[in-house]
């Protein structure tokens, strides 16, 4: 059994590591530090941690002010609040200024679970990716969360990093993480599956099941949404003719839309979207919700099987 980690635990520990390496790092939170795990940094470096209470808009614009003075800012809240509640602050004060603010949003997606629709961010990728200057990383597991945080620390400019609430299994043998370069998880030429975040785990299961049926699927972990690795997408379009995109997000505006845009302009092939089909979420356990919203490995497998005959067979 693979190691299971909370991405936000890894995030908190990485912040502490960064904090001792770099005096210039400050961390902000909005009354969720025990959930986002910025409390680990707060405990270690109380002089460089600021809690804004339940005031996300204020936290975002204050981050911009700190960054204008040369501070490297990491800040956290839940994805619904980071991307939704404070969007205009992110747009005008952070993104337009091209400031060094790293927004690490936790509790993204349907697997937030029992808290229900108000707390399940299914729109945040869409909201963030339309902002010029914004970089977006969605790590697929615990260790990749550290890679994402380090990449954000190393590269100047605003970042949005999307983390989940639940534990995720560590994906073995996925190779080195390179910001802006997709990871090839498995080789194959019958179909391409592109996934991000926890959907990579679901996709790995689907790839195994498909292999048993004689279908060789190429699996791409698209951990960086912006800048997008266009090259790997075009290659997949040319070599496999069918692309299945899997994301824990609305099918509108997220990873699937990114892929659609590249494909439509350059090499049109069929793209099938596995995602939340324009509905709000609801309360439930994460695994129940993945099934209810057709995001499970079986749904990915079904999407492949019902479309592959038309394009390959």
């Amino acid at each position: 059994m693979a190691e299971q980690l909370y991405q936000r635990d890894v995030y908190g520990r990485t912040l502490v590591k960064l904090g001792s390496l770099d005096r210039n790092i400050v961390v902000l939170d909005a009354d969720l530090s025990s959930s986002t795990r910025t409390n680990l940094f707060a405990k270690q470096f109380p002089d460089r941690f600021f809690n804004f209470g339940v005031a996300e808009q204020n936290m975002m614009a204050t981050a911009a002010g700190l960054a204008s003075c040369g501070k490297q800012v990491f800040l956290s809240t839940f994805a619904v609040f980071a991307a939704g509640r404070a969007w205009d602050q992110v747009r005008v004060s952070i993104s337009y200024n091209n400031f060094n603010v790293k927004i690490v949003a936790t509790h993204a997606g349907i697997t937030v679970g029992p808290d229900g629709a108000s707390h399940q961010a299914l729109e945040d990728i869409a909201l963030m990716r339309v902002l010029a200057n914004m970089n977006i990383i969605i790590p697929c597991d615990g260790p990749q969360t550290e890679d994402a945080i380090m990449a954000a620390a190393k590269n100047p400019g605003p970042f949005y990093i999307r983390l989940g609430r639940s534990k995720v299994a560590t994906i073995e043998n996925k190779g080195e993480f390179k910001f802006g370069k997709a990871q090839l998880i498995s080789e194959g030429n019958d179909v391409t599956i592109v996934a991000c975040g926890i959907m990579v785990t679901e996709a790995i299961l689907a790839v195994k099941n498909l292999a048993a049926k004689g279908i060789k699927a190429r699996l791409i972990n698209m951990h960086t949404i912006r800048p997008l690795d266009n090259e790997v997408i075009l290659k997949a379009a040319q070599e496999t003719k069918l692309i299945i995109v899997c994301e824990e997000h609305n099918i509108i505006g997220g990873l699937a839309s990114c892929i659609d845009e590249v494909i439509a302009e350059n090499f049109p092939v069929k793209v099938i979207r596995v995602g939340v089909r324009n509905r709000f979420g609801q309360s439930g356990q994460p695994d129940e919700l993945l099934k209810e919203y057709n995001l499970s490995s079986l749904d990915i497998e079904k999407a492949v099987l019902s479309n592959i005959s038309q394009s390959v067979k």
Partner: protein
Amino acid sequence: MANKLLTTEELVIQARSIRRLIIQMLAQAGSGHPGGSLSAADLITALYSNVLRFNPAGPQWPDRDRFHMSKGHCCPLWYAVLAQAGYFPKEKLFTLRQLGSILQGHPDRKTPGVESASGSLGQGLAIALGMSLAAKVDKKDYRVYCLLGDGELQEGSVWEAAMACAHFSCDNLCAILDANGCQIDGRCEDIMGLEPLAAKWQAFGWQVIEINGHDMKQILAAYEQAKTIKNKPTIIIARTVKGKGVSFMEGVIGFHGRAPTQEEAQRALKELA
């Protein structure tokens, strides 16, 4: 400080020349916001002439005092003052709002001396708070000034920032409220009442200094007093007249966001001669 301190008489003359530049820039641009630029002209002229520590030759000097204009639509005033201070040549002022200009319709970091964009109201006080916290983290003694509009106070995010500035005891921060009593759709008190302003800010934990925002003696005294306040932020509530200095613009709501015509500009410049 870039220049030697000006006397109040010299400041009055300086502010008049800033107002002339504002009128000329806006008439040339054909659009923009004269009303609030003119109402805050005395406050910001005095700030840059006698209060702020800065170095136009090294705009990134780490110990500089910070100024941020939260009511970004009044940037013609900011640009005129920055040009006067030597951040860029005055000729540049007449490129305001033109394609490719360093002087955008609302503040942008392209402009030397501008620390952060603004234009979407209600965010600037939080930006100033960030600058204030950075000084604390870095143990620097620079001060942070932020110009707010009164209509802007209707944005809830201003009060989030107000709460936080007091919570973090930001005594290096001084907000300047250009209380001209007007906003786009009419008088503030008719559109969405804001009074009692002083009591509101006091209740949020701020030191309040209320002045006539066109009296240079009162303005300078307020800035000096603000420097002495410890453990809490200060707001200077400056009662002003929108369009101040141009008789046919004073208190006229329509001049919030309409540039003067060439003919109006000529009349205005005569009054400001």
